[in-house]
């Protein structure tokens, strides 16, 4: 019996020393199998158990269990230590240069004009507007007549407005070359909307407009306008002011102020131009705003009752307001773009900035 006990003690001591010297998980596994495996040393010792007296067996059995438990604990302990060490080594070896560039599929950018247009649309969606659009090639009726432009209005001139060949066979009378034209503003959408829709009307109409301007650093023959129209009961000039104040704060910043200057437009009465306080000098006057402290951003007014004649809206019941703004102008005010033609070139290095 004592032999077996001695063997167990010996195995335990030997294993303790051997395990302490193990340097990796592989060696540890080899030792585990050697000591505790089915064909391992412990099993070999316990084979002698059968030759013992029944009275001795429990003692040796208990002893062997102790040794097994001790060995298992040591192995687990070593395993944990070695695993921790190995992980530490791996982490050390995998240290990155985090200044190397990342890996990403490039995401495209939105055009500056579309971006501002969408920002403005968001503001007016929030105010309960619908977004509507109209044709780029318009009839002079919608672009001029129904908007109170006299037959002699200078904007009709073929030097200012693009005219388009009319294939309808209709005879055109008048000094202009055709009744079909590239719209010069988004205001025709006002008329089309009032023809198709009963009040209450709350619409925003973004779109391209065209004027016969030679492209230069501040002019393009095509630019983007956004038209707003509200027709409802009890719509007042005060509502127009509140609406545009909200718009200016949302787009230019809450610290900016507005100024309404009386003006003239054929299709609104009363009419106003709206200035926003200069963002550079805060209305004290600087070179950016030409010393006035204010920068003009849009035109607006109460819908002229004459317009209701062309559509089925009861002018005694409804009032309305309209406003129109140029998106390129807002872009030029917000970003210091030296030449507006850059907007149409498609230079990747310009587009990628937005």
């Amino acid at each position, binding site marked *: 019996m004592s032999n077996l006990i001695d063997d167990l003690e010996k195995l335990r001591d030997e294993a303790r020393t051997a395990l302490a010297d193990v340097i990796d998980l592989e060696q540890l596994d080899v030792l585990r199998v050697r000591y505790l495996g089915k064909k391992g040393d412990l099993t070999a010792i316990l084979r002698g158990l059968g030759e013992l007296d029944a009275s001795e067996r429990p003692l040796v059995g208990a002893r062997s269990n102790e040794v097994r438990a001790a060995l298992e604990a040591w192995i687990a302990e070593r395993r944990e230590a070695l695993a921790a060490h190995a992980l530490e080594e791996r982490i050390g070896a995998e240290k990155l240069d985090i200044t*190397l560039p990342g890996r990403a599929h490039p995401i495209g950018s939105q055009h500056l004009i579309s971006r501002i247009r969408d920002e403005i649309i968001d503001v007016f969606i929030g105010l309960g507007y619908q977004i509507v659009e109209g044709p780029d*090639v318009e009839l002079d009726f919608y672009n001029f007549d129904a908007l109170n432009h006299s037959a*002699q209005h*200078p904007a009709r001139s073929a030097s200012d407005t693009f005219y388009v060949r009319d294939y309808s066979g209709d005879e055109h009378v008048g000094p202009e070359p055709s009744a079909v034209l590239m719209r010069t503003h988004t205001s025709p959408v006002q008329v089309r909307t009032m023809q198709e829709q009963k009040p209450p009307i709350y619409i925003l109409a973004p779109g391209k407009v065209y004027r016969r301007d030679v492209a230069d650093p501040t002019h393009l023959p095509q630019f983007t306008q956004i038209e707003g129209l509200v027709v409802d009961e*009890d719509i007042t*000039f005060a509502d127009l002011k509140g609406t545009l104040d909200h718009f200016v704060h949302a787009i230019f910043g809450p610290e900016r102020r507005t100024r309404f200057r*009386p*003006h003239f437009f054929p299709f609104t*009465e009363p009419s106003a131009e709206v200035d926003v306080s200069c963002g550079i000098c805060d209305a004290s006057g600087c070179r950016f705003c030409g010393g006035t402290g204010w920068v003009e951003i849009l035109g607006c007014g109460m819908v002229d009752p004459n317009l209701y004649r062309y559509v089925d809206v009861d002018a005694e019941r409804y009032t309305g307001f309209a406003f129109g703004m140029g998106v390129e102008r807002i872009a030029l005010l917000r970003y210091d773009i030296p030449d507006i033609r850059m907007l149409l070139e498609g230079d990747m290095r310009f587009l990628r900035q937005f």
Partner: protein
Amino acid sequence: MRASLNWLRELLALGALDALSIDELVSRLDMTGTAVEAVEQTGAHLAGIYVGQITSKERHPDSDHLWVTRVDIGAVGAEKGADEDGLLQIVCGAQNFEAGDKVPVATVGTVLVRPGSGDGSGSGDSDGSAQEFVIKKAKLRGVESRGMNCSARELGVGDDADGLMVLPADAPIGAEFAAWLGASDTILDLEITPNRPDCLSMIGVAREVAAVLDVEVADGLVPAAELLEEGESIDTLATVEVEEPTLCPRYTARVIRGVKVGPSPTWLAERVIAAGTRSINNIVDVTNFIMYELGQPLHAFDLNRIAKEKDGRAQVIVRRAGAGEKITTLDDVERVLDTENLLIADSSGPITLAGVMGAESTEVSDDTVDIFLEAAVFDAATTSRTSRKLALISESSLRFERGVDVATTLQALERAAALIAEVAGGTVAPGVIDVSVAPAERLVLPLRHNLMTRVIGEDIPLETAALLLERLGFKVERGADGADDALRVTVPTFRPDIEREIDLVEEVLRLWGMDNVTATLPAGRERVGALTSEQRARYAIDRTLRASGLNETMTLPFGDVADLEKLDHPLSHARAGSDGSDASDTQDSLLVELLNPMSSEQATLRVTMLPGLLRSVSLNKRRGVANVHLYELGKVFTTAAGRKQPDEREMAAAVLSGSWNQLGWNAPAVPLDFYDAKGIIEALVRELGVDRFRMTEPADGALPWLQPGKGAVLLLGKETVGWLGEIHPLVAQEFDIDDVVVAFEFDLAKFIAAAKPNRDVVAPPRYPGIEVDIALVVDEDVTNAEIEQRIYALGKKTPLKSVRLFDVYRGQVSEQRKRPGRPKGGSTASIPEGKKSMAYRLVYRADDRTLTAEEVDKAHDKLLTKLKQTLGAELRG
């Protein structure tokens, strides 16, 4: 409209402007609807010139015509190089002065304009040969000179170049010359909106300023003309016949005889120059002066150059021009007229283009002695058409086309006649010719308090409104017809823009102050702000294109037929003939033509966005940007016989060239090709849930701008909605591009219509699938689609769930590009010429259990056997 403040002060009550700075005045005008576009200080060109007294005059030691003068310019001399006695030494070549005389002295640093060879009347700077020069400290024949004693001509204030401008003895030494001369004035450049013809006159501006500032205009705003009539009556000298009274509602005339045409007196020249015109002579200047003062254009004829009737009277006729009739206008241009043009004529022909410009034949010249003076009102529309058609815009036509007040006409005539007699001598013939239709009754409008409140949103008391309107010259009756909630307002004749009650509301609002209106937001109940589902889908496409790596751009919508020819586009010939009929009869799809394009490159509207985008690719390459990824959402236009407005379709188009990225430490720069563009379309189809989308090979010659074999037609069901492919190398060359360009273009609305807003949700599988890879060696012309379809068909009764191509191998080069993370397929054994190896990963999976390997093997073996039979495919690996 240029408004001189000196002039304005005379028209306003004394001291009316004194309490205000210029800035305040400008701001008040800005905020009431008269925008001040610029403030100009006149006399600025005389800065640096002072009144000086010549204290001594000595011969130049080395010259027999030069003088050495010493000049006192007062305290300012200390800064201008005066000696210890406070005097400037100036060498001077003039001979007309004595010691003690006072003269204008240009100090060192002054910039003068040397007049050209022009007539010198008025501002010399209108003459092309004038040039600037700077007064410098100089030595003239060894004697130092610090400044220049000036002649009137050198200063541009007179014609006299023969000697120094000797000033009156009371001119104060050291005064700024401009201020002493009265040449310093402030000119406000006013933006007059088209509805305010009254403000195209000084008297109108004065009324407006008085109303805005709540001050009074001058007593007897414009002095009544004091006319001394003498000699033969006008009735014996001239007759006027108005054939077109609707186009000429009033024609008045006077005759002034025995005038002497010559330079204007200074005050008159100053006024017309301040108003922005040149001083011509005393007669023309008077007509211009009255036009600027009262807004009534006038015309002076040489009476003796108007053809006479038999009885010797000058015969003036107001009539329409005959078709093809000609007139040589004052600018020496012969103009061909039509019946739209209104003329003043005599029996020999036209003598004025009515309201626009006079004719040479009856022009006032230096030897004119008798004047026929016209003050008339011509129809606004007719004047406007004439001046635009002939591209002849004058100060006169500008006023007529906006409307001239018939009530002012006679006053203007009388005042001009009296002034001509005053400044040019002569006598006014007794009598006035006045041919006029009865003036319209003064317009009377109501102004209801509730309308005012309803439009403005502020409760402006009726009495406040009444006072504001009275300030503007309206006659206001309170409580008319027993109504205490409305005014009765009589509109003055000088405000033709006030036609309706709403116009009065605007007048009240602009004077009361838009800034005083408290901002509110509309309270409307029945409204919802939202995008439509189409608009949301459009945004989704927009976003997906960007998420795919494309950058949005914007190009002009114009098209060039030459570009379509470069593309060999089918519509490159779809133009109407010069008579507008040929093609329109035969073509059902036509280019939209601009009738007045800016250039031949922009003579049509685009039918495809490709040329504009290719141009952007070319621009980027030229500028050294190799990687180009652009897209645009924009309209294209076509029309057809019988159509008025064209068909406008919104398209999405894109171009890709180079690679997605520049070569990186961890990312190769893979050249972009067909499949990169296809991947974007596939992403869109997935993102929008587009139904029935497919791509097919184009029919022969169908998309000629694409490289054959590298193009595809995009279809929704059977409908073609766009194309995709690599641009034909020859087409790319036409646009100066040497690289591969991949592009697509599709119809946005059709794509959106096919999008499914709601989708069927499929629960993710709960049991794992088993993946099996196969590689098939097939003939080159067998397509992936054919193989996939075949595999799916054969696997129909098996648990086959998906088939995915992961490699194409042609012996040498693998189609599988060196992108990280892709499985490597098949072996690298050589493949026979004309064959390719296609490697697929098949996934077998059951929805209700985990498949066993035996089940899969059995199904897969069966599938392979059939594949070999039907495709003639050889199995590899």
